């Protein structure tokens, strides 16, 4: 397998980590930058295939518009669901602040 580096930089990996909501450490950035560079170099081989006229396959079994009967069924028990959450309050999920305070 060819392992030609694609030249992904440490800064690009930091950007990917931000997009993916991963607070990676500086040490991880060094390790991941090297590893992702090698992996991307290997998987870039898909570009060797001349495939201008080949349709993409997103799914091995072609399916469109799958419906099931529209019947009322009970939802999951609220207390059990909230008991499995990191924090709950007044019968709802409790989350850290979403908006900046000084608005």
């Amino acid at each position: 397998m060819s392992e030609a580096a694609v030249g992904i930089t440490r800064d690009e990996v930091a950007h990917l980590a931000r997009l993916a909501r991963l607070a990676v450490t500086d040490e991880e950035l060094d390790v991941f930058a090297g590893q992702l560079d090698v992996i991307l170099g290997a998987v870039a081989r898909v570009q060797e295939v001349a495939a201008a006229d080949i349709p993409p396959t997103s799914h091995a079994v072609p399916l469109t518009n799958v419906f099931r009967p529209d019947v009322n069924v009970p939802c999951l028990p609220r207390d059990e669901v909230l008991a499995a959450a990191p924090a709950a309050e007044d019968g709802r999920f409790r989350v850290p602040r979403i908006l900046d305070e000084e608005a």
Partner: protein
Amino acid sequence: MDLTRMTAAELGAAIASGETSSVEVTQAHLDRIAAVDDRVHAFLHVDTDGALAAARGVDERRDDGETLGPLAGVPLALKDVIVTRGIPTTVGSRILEGWIPPYDATVTTKLREAGIVVLGKTNMDEFAMGSSTENSAYGPSHNPWDLDRVPGGSSGGSSAAVAAFSAPLGIGTDTGGSIRQPAAVTGIVGHKPTYGGVSRYGLVAFSSSLDQAGPFARTVLDAALLHEAMAGHDPMDSTSIDAPVPPVVAAARQGGTGDLTGLRVGVVRELSGEGYEPGVEAVTREALARLEKLGATVHEVSCPSFGYALPAYYLIAPSECSSNLARFDAVRYGLRVGDDGVRSLEEVMSLTREAGFGPEVKRRIMLGTYALSSGYYDAYYGQAQKVRTLISRDFAAAFETADVLVSPATPTVAFPIGERANDPLAMYAADLCTLPASLAGLPAISVPSGLSEGLPVGLQVMAPALADDRCYRVAAALEADRGHPLTEEAPAL
């Protein structure tokens, strides 16, 4: 009589006839787990009370005169990626440590309906990403044939449990080979059903267009019985196929007669050669000779696009995973780290995911994020999807001259724990043989074909969509020719 040495079919019959009870059978396996699992580490959670209660339920139904199904009362090891109401489900990850699911997966429901007794939840590579269980946040499982080697992965806990006689049945999930590869390296039978054959409802998602649950067992008939119990259309999974379950049990019985007269076997040229151990290739050649002896005709076929399966898979699966794993947002379930009342949701989310995911999961999330990002999408993800089309076309052409296609199930025997842990590409190569059928959504089985230097080798048998029965027929014929399950030859633990 040692109940742990019996097959699931034998146990089911003995329980139904009253020769033994499900409680006795279940207790024997719980005792076996207590005796060996400190060395094998197949289980993340043993549900002793729940298993014995389920066993008592089956025994009571029998005492009431109810006719029981073929696997009623038989114990099973369930991969920890399948959710179980009231029983912890971690997916091998810290991010779900301590999570008690509020619902059952359809597979779990079907097991209960069949009277199958769930002994506990088995170890796995975190989020099913890996080929060795070394990516589990809870430490690796060990191969019962050689405790210093991996039991394969990602479903290595289930394969180790079945090979160690801790359970006669196991359930794994296979995205790129995670049933077939662990089955091969532990000397047991493992089948990946046609995509859509088994419901994915309650299977914690890794790569939704590829994930598929399937059976492990020490015999082909046992795997077929479990396949029938867990398969079938499910309105809760929109990708579930609305068609009858292929007649896999009948096929296993038919194959068990050892007659393959008229069957056309295609050997995939591209799944051999460089990267394949000589011992694996030798055992595979022997298996082909045995297929001919049993009446099959064997010829070589070429599938030129298979050489691109590995790069295509390692773009498609990470892309889907980067999307699927976004649900771990520190809000609805699992871990939350750094919530000090000051940090924002986004900061808490990032700290939680950093603390909760292991390195392989992070690598794949970032790889997928890259492959899907603007400017790279066409060159990576888009191109990988086109390769997927080409692989399906190669299969279609090969099945014009062959009823089944065969290859080794893995390029090597079980490798030592630690050998590939820091080399992602070497680890990915363990899936070399299994990826094409995954990408095309086709059924494929791994059946023990022999030993190389004392370690198991598996033969992969692939079939067209919804022809899972062909896999079982060929596998059962090879097993019948050997005369006994390969695990009978395993060293005592």
